[in-house]
């Protein structure tokens, strides 16, 4: 009795033995993950550049859009608060708590600095820095916990790899860097050309990191189990290959990398690159859900 075989078909909901697509986490969840990581990435890069408008945009993207898409996914949205109850074992609970900390410390820091509350209330500089540090720490968890939540699922071999949380982080930072560049190009970055150049270089390096992470993810899934191999085939050879190569790799990585390397000083190039990175990142998020497969529980095929 074989346990599973890579030659078995994908059978959908039929009463046959074979691989089954996971459809429990679909586009609304992909939207929520995308917005959560994008917002956290914008916040982290803007915090690095000390760009408060960027930090505010990052907070709003996470707190409003991510929350909205999560609630639209939930079967019983009015009971969603219960998701916070098990941080000892669930990455969903840990993530929800980190979003809470991120929102509290992030908005507190922006309130203290942008609205001048720190001065008017006589709050010491060390406390303001501590607030920023805690917000950054929480944002780091927000940018990675979704990858951990997915990588802990042994059921879906494509997700069950340590590269998943790393992919969340590098994609979040790459998209965050591009959006920060677009937002600040004619603002604070116009007066700080070395920082602008550094952010372009960081973006390029992050795109290289994205390539390495994607290759690691596909390699781990391919060599992990027959289900992982089948998922990698879906992404690289069959159903989803045109989307994966066209949008995720072509528009999302190759095009922005070439544009940034050739014309990193041009706003138009940065704008097109940012749009490309966001499109590629979003397609990655959707495809990684679409290509997730459950393995057949057993097979008698030789």
């Amino acid at each position, binding site marked *: 009795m074989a346990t*599973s075989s890579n030659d078995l078909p994908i059978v959908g909901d039929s009463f046959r*033995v074979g691989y089954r697509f996971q459809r429990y986490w679909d586009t609304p969840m992909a939207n929520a993950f995308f917005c959560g990581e994008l917002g956290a990435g914008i916040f982290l890069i803007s915090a690095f550049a000390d760009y408060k408008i960027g930090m505010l945009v990052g907070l709003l993207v996470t707190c409003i859009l991510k929350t909205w898409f999560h609630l639209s996914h939930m*079967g019983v949205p009015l009971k969603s608060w219960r998701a916070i109850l098990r941080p000892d074992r669930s990455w969903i609970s840990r993530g929800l708590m980190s979003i809470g900390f991120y929102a509290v410390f992030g908005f507190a820091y922006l309130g203290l600095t942008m609205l001048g509350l720190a001065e008017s209330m006589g709050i010491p500089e060390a406390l303001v820095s501590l607030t920023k540090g805690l917000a950054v720490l929480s944002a780091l968890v927000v940018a990675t916990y979704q990858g951990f939540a997915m990588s802990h699922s042994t059921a879906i071999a494509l997700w069950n790899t340590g590269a998943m949380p790393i992919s969340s982080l590098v994609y979040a930072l790459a998209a965050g860097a591009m959006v920060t560049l677009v937002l600040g190009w004619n603002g604070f970055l116009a007066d700080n050309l070395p920082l602008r150049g550094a952010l372009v270089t960081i973006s390029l390096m992050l795109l290289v990191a994205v390539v390495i992470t994607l290759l690691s993810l596909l390699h781990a899934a391919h060599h992990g189990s027959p289900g992982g191999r089948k998922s990698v085939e879906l992404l690289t050879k069959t159903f989803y290959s045109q989307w994966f190569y066209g949008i995720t790799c072509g528009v999302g990585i190759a095009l922005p990398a070439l544009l940034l390397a050739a014309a990193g000083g041009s706003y138009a190039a940065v704008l097109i690159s940012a749009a490309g990175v966001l499109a590629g990142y979003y397609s990655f998020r959707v495809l990684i859900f679409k290509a997730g497969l459950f*393995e057949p529980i057993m097979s008698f*095929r030789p």
Partner: protein
Amino acid sequence: MARYGMVFDLKRCIGCNACVVGCKQENSLPDSVLFTRTLSEEYGVFPAVNRVYIPTLCNHCEDAPCEKVCPSSATYTRDDGIVMVDPDKCIGCGSCAVACPYDQRNEMHADLFKDGLFGTGELTPFEEQGYARFTPGMVTKCDFCSGRVDQGLDPACVVTCPTDARIFGDLDDPDSKPSKLIRERKGRPPLPEKNTRPKVFYVE
């Protein structure tokens, strides 16, 4: 305390799907929601071709991944080993569904309860009394017919099976029928490499 489990005798299963119908009826399941399925597979090359039927349901794992990831404590294990879902606590996030290697979770979309089995938008008295145990939007699964088990009865799929291909009982009792079958015919769990320690076994 008993530790309930089930054995599927693959030599006896004829793929009639009476268990599937019995389960749907016992649990008043809405359209497209199934707690058990009997999968089929053909293998071999003509003329040496064979077809096998493989019944599936929740494996009530000792180390249930669905319970570990549940953020709201809705999934829990009873003292007798039956893994349950509390409809009052489930938030329908689906994290249990993507954690179950056996794809045995079911989303109870709110629309299912509105349309009714006949798609007319009206519920029959049978549906009205049955749907009361579910919260629309929750994610649920087989509970070994825990209500019947509490009364000393076997699950509905077991009593419906015309060939005794499903054998239910206490796995801790060495003299129980499932324990003997597992021991004598080398019963094996599904996907053992997932390390979930299922309480459902297959014998050939």
